[in-house]
Each structure stands twice: as structure tokens, then as C-alpha cells.
């Protein structure tokens, strides 16, 4: 959810809206904002699943230190989405384990 009006920060400035793909779905994002912000605004809460126990992870530190938010971006795994800016046409996929996007047969539970 975007905070459009704020008593101190004022009205949210309209940035350049672009389209990005997230797990096959097209969503709107603001060019230059961190990928994780766009995903949270779109209601996405799970960014990746861990290698051994397949546990869901989201955003934890939001400043590039903890690696919880890593996803596969334009085919490149282990991208820290909280410090990587959105570009038009980006392809973002939930990461499974150490560096792969989803393959058929991947179980999450």
C-alpha cells in the first residue's frame, strides 16, 4: 500500500510509472524505486524460499545487508531487491534456494 498523503512528507510525488513482470504477472512500478518497494506496494510478501527448508522470506533490513529479499532479476539470481532500482520491462522471479527461478517440480510446502 502506497502512502499517498502524509502529514509531514506531503503528497507523494508522481514518479514515472513503468511496467515490470513479477512471476509472469505485469505490475506497475515507479521507475527508480527499489524493486522491493514496488512489490510491497503491489501486495507481494514472499520474495524467495530458502534452500533446505523451503521457508518463505520477505524484507527484513531493507538496506542491503541481510539478503532476505533476494530474487532472480532478469535471469540473474541473488539480487538484493531492496537496493536495486526498478527499470522498465524488468523481469522479476521468486527465487528458490540458492539461485534458481522456479522449475517444474519445485514444492514449496
Amino acid at each position, binding site marked *: 500500500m*502506497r*502512502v*499517498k498523503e502524509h502529514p509531514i512528507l506531503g503528497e507523494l510525488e508522481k514518479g514515472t510509472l513503468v511496467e515490470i513482470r513479477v512471476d509472469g504477472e505485469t505490475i506497475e512500478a515507479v521507475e527508480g524505486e527499489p524493486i522491493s518497494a514496488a512489490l510491497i506496494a503491489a501486495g507481494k*510478501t514472499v520474495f524467495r524460499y530458502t534452500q533446505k527448508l523451503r521457508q518463505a*522470506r520477505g*524484507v527484513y533490513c531493507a538496506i*542491503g545487508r541481510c539478503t532476505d529479499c533476494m530474487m532472480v532479476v532478469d535471469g540473474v539470481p541473488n539480487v538484493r531487491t531492496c537496493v536495486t532500482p526498478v527499470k522498465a520491462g524488468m523481469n522479476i522471479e521468486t527465487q528458490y534456494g540458492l539461485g534458481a527461478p522456479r522449475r517444474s517440480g519445485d514444492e514449496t510446502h
Partner: protein
Amino acid sequence: MRHTEVAVVGGGPAGLSAAIEAASAGARVTLVDEHQRPGGQLFKQIHKFFGSKEHRAGVRGIDIGTQLLQQVEASGVQVMLDSVVWGIFDERVLGVIHEGRNLLLKAEKVILATGATENALAFPGWTLSGVMGAGAIQTLVNVQRVLPGKRILMVGSGNVGLIVSYQLLQAGAEVVGIVEAAPNVGGYGVHASKVRRQGVPIWTSTTVKEALGAEKVERAVLVTLDDKWQPIAGTEREIKVDVICLSCGLSPLAELARIAGCEFQYLPALGGHVPLHDHDMQTSVKGLYLAGDVAGIEEASTAMEEGRLAGVAVAESLGYLSAAEARGKKEAINRRLDELREGPFGCARREAKEQLCGSMAGWRY
């Protein structure tokens, strides 16, 4: 290999202040910051600061940040953004990843102003999506303008927990409560009062036992603690939340100081393991200085003063300020620092700083 006179690592309030001070005296300064915009945590502090007029009391952190950025631009500091200092070698050579490529930067003097890292609190379910640090919440809400949830449990009632709770209310979220493991509220009474009057409860001697949910937080289990900080069986209760915010203190982000071989001292009042520094903010490694939270967890106001102090000290040591000029500036800065370290909240920090400096008395390089 690139060269500079003064390398400042970290562009938060301490680093910006250090860079401005050194550059204003005439030194060639390079400020290196890993983010796309300097300012550190300042641009998340939307509240008005305390202190006196000299400390810019009554001015919002975000506006102090803007002023510092303008001053940095005007003072001729070379700013390298999106640049991570990953290592520090002998003779003050920094390893920097700048625009995706590695380079070495040699400096005559280095000022580490790398700030702090948040303490974690681990409990079953803490890895669920929706459990995040207070810094994360501030970044998401105040900079990126997104809310990670609607019903927040705040863990920790220090100033950060209280302030971030208030900021969550301002952004339109509900803070269902603040838990505090200690028997008393940790932060300023005025910060607590601001959220209490909006209906946010503060539960002391209480902590979070577990976070429940399938892939994201759906409920939190709270438990009461006895006077030995142990959970009292049978006092568990569940509340519905979608975000659990951890605000359990900060520790100096001092890895570069470690790598450089600095001596450390353990001082709980300053957040744990702190690199030694003298009254000029110089560490046990010659030519390596510190400023801000990396030198002990305090606040933005003290970070700015320490930054100035380090900036003056390096300028003096490089010959850009005479001993008399430097002495005058340092006296004024120390007076302002002493003021900020007074009172029941500040005195433990002042004593700890004295111990730190005392440990370097008579230090031979």
C-alpha cells in the same frame, strides 16, 4: 590507484559533517557512500530534533539532511555514491566497488563514519515475511512511501521503537502495541506520551515469544517476563498482527575498524564493542579516525558534532588549520557535545566515552 587527502567512509550525519569541516579548511576530501543518495538515516527522521538552537533543535531530521547536502556540494567534496568500501589495507588504502568495478583509493587520513547495525531478536517464526527491523520500517514508510502492513507490533520501547511507532501512525497504520522486556519504558517520556495519547498501549515486562503464520506473519504470541527476564508460563496471549517490528538496539558497524586492526573496548552504554578513539576521534591505528554511531551508539546530533571534531582534527593534522584555530573549533564542538551528553539519558554515554578516550591515554603509534 586513486589518491585523496581525506577519505570519509559513510555519508550519514557524521560523515557529511566531517567532510564539510575538512573541505572547508582546505583539504581534498572524498566521501564514499554505498547508497544512491547520502544522508544515512537522516532522511528517515521526520520528527523535530531536541537540543538547543546550536544543535538545530526544533528542525526536522529530513531538513537538517537537506542542509548538509547543500553544504557538501558547496564545499567541493568529491562524492562517490553507489560505492561500497569493502576493505581497508595498510597505509590507508581502501578497496572500493564503484559503479560495479573494483578500485583502490589511497588516503592520507581516513574517517570511518559507517554508523550502526540493528540488533536482531530471534524467536520461533522470526524469519516469516513481515518480521523486520525498525530501520526497515523507516526506510519503507518515510523514504519509499509504502506500508508493509496495517497492524504492527513494535518490539522495544527505546527512542527508536517509540519514534517509529509514531511515524507508523502518521503513515496511517495501526500500532496494536509496543512490548518492552524491561520493567520500564526505555526511551524519552515525551516520545512515549505521543503514542500513548493516540491509544497505543505499552506493555512492559513483556516480550514476543513466537510469530505465527503460514508464510507471513498473521499472529504474535506475547508473554510476560518476571523480574529475572524469564517468561512466566501461562501468561501467553495471541494478538493479530501482520508486521512485527524489531527495535532492540543498535551496535556500531565497525567491521572496517576491525579489519584495520583497531583496538576495541566493550561498553554496553555505547552499544557493545566500540573501537578506541582519543579526543581527536583518532583510533589506535594512526591516521584512522571515527565519527558517529560507529564510535558508540548515540544520536544524530552527537554524530554531527563528532563528525566536525574528526574533520577539524584531520585538517589540523594535514596542516590546513593551525593549532590555535583547531583548538578554538574543538572547544566549541566539545562544549556542544557535552551538552548533549548531560542528564539521566546522556550521562552513561558520557562516562563510557571518557573510558574510551582514557584507554588511549599515552597511546604510542
